[in-house]
């Protein structure tokens, strides 16, 4: 679905954010895009959506070059930015004005999503809270039936019940012909939802692996003391939370936060394991 080839990108010359980045993303997955602040999560998403243009390299989304901003591709992209603006109209006016651009827009589904999210339908968009507006554009974006769903920090601003609703909705939104990319630093909100982890660090993809692959290769568990088998560990109440190489086919639960810190701290030890 998405082929990124030798992408170079920088907001300023001589200061590249991505250096020769290559990656392929396919349908039927929810990708979790992780990275430190400023690692370029939002920028990568904008590159994919064609909101910014690469300095060099190629970007192929469903056979289109996103930087050309062709309507045929735009109608297949649902982009939920972190900051957004909605006009001061009611929801049905908003839908009337925008839904026509999406040939497959599903009105009953949209209504069902609004109900699931508890959105007061008669209220003007501008009078809604940030979280409510966010839920409206998430509902609208999913109802467009776009094949590529890109979300930048979608759980920011959602209250606790909304986060659970969001997870349910995303779980049902994943179909075989859809590709969902979610950037987040609130990993706890989403860790059971994503099936493939993409981690950005130091101008490139530091890790791209499915949860299955990660837990096949690594083992996340509590240990009493650190020995040389431990790749990375953080102290906890009962000893250490550690990342070890998975030699004995142990099944463990992926701890995204621990993995994230391990990738940042122990790049050199992890690299050979995943190649």
């Amino acid at each position: 679905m998405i082929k990124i080839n030798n992408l170079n990108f920088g907001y300023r010359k001589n200061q590249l954010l991505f250096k020769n980045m290559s990656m392929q993303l396919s349908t039927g997955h929810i990708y979790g895009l992780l990275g430190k602040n400023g690692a370029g999560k939002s920028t990568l998403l904008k590159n994919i959506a064609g909101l910014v243009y690469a300095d060099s390299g190629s970007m192929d989304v469903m056979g289109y070059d996103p930087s050309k901003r062709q309507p045929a591709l735009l109608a297949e992209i649902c982009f939920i930015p972190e900051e957004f603006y909605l006009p001061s109209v009611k929801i049905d006016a908003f839908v009337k004005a925008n839904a026509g651009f999406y040939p497959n827009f599903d009105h009953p589904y949209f209504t069902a999503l609004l109900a699931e999210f508890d959105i007061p339908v008669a209220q003007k968009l501008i009078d809604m809270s940030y979280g409510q507006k966010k839920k409206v554009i998430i509902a609208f974006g999913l109802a467009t039936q776009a094949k590529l769903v890109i979300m930048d920090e979608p759980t920011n601003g959602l209250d606790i019940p909304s986060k659970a609703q969001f997870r349910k909705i995303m779980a049902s939104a994943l179909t075989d012909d859809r590709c969902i990319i979610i950037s987040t630093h609130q990993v706890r909100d989403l860790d059971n939802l994503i099936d493939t982890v993409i981690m950005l660090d130091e101008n490139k993809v530091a890790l791209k692996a499915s949860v299955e692959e990660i837990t096949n290769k690594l083992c996340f568990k509590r240990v009493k003391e650190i020995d040389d088998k431990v790749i990375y560990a953080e102290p906890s109440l009962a000893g250490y939370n550690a990342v070890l190489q998975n030699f004995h086919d142990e099944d463990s639960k992926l701890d995204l936060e621990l993995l994230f810190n391990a990738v940042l701290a122990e790049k050199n030890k992890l690299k050979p394991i995943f190649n």
Partner: protein
Amino acid sequence: MNNTFSIQRFGLLLKRQWLEFGKIYLITLAVALGVIITFYSFATWNTIFEQRLFSERLLNFREPLFLIFGFLFITVIASSYFAHLGQKSKAIIDLMIPASTFEKFLTGVLFTAVLSTVSFLVIFYLTDLAFVSKLRSIFHNVDTATSFRDSYGKVVETRDNLAFFFTRNYPKEFTSVFLLTPVFVTSIFLLGSIYFNKFHYIKTAISVMIFSGIWTYIIVKTGQTMFDNKIPINTGNGENISKGLIELGMFSLLLLLTAIFWVITYVRLKEKQV
């Protein structure tokens, strides 16, 4: 799917942009209407309600009002059209709308060059119609527009000194240039609205002043170096160049400049990144 232009998508985009832009547009239009009515009321109040004598000078405010306010109105509209693209949060939503860049650009041209000019002409025409009709109903004696031959056989027209604004000021010469001027002016301010991220109007106005200053300077200087201390040989031949040719020249120049500004605007829109 045609990725450059589809009439159905263009229609949708016009409707959508009206939802976004219409409110600012209507408010500006209402303000303009208010100002025009205020001017007319002030000027004609005494005459209409206190039966003072009508003087031709009474309506002399119309020309400057039309020119200055018309200019302000269309430039304000034009310089606010793409202004929101300077804000990240609004720009993202707009750029992700599944319409082609060309359609988005064309919508901008339609709203600024065509709609704003036409609507200003309409409100000015209607206000003028209302007030002048009232005046004409009071002062029947000025409502005369006759022509006759005097004793030498020459046609004499008596002027109607209570004429409607557009009857009196309809450009009899250089019509095409007059019609193109608002389009040209809006093209500059439309470009300004996408070129600058903030304070679009004032920055565009300043840029226009600086540019026209530089151009005037260059033309005057080259004229001086080329023609100073030289004698024009075929004096009095100016009449040879017909007015039609001058009009065509001016029209072409304006059209060329307008086209250039539009092309730059289109390219800026295409290259817009957030």
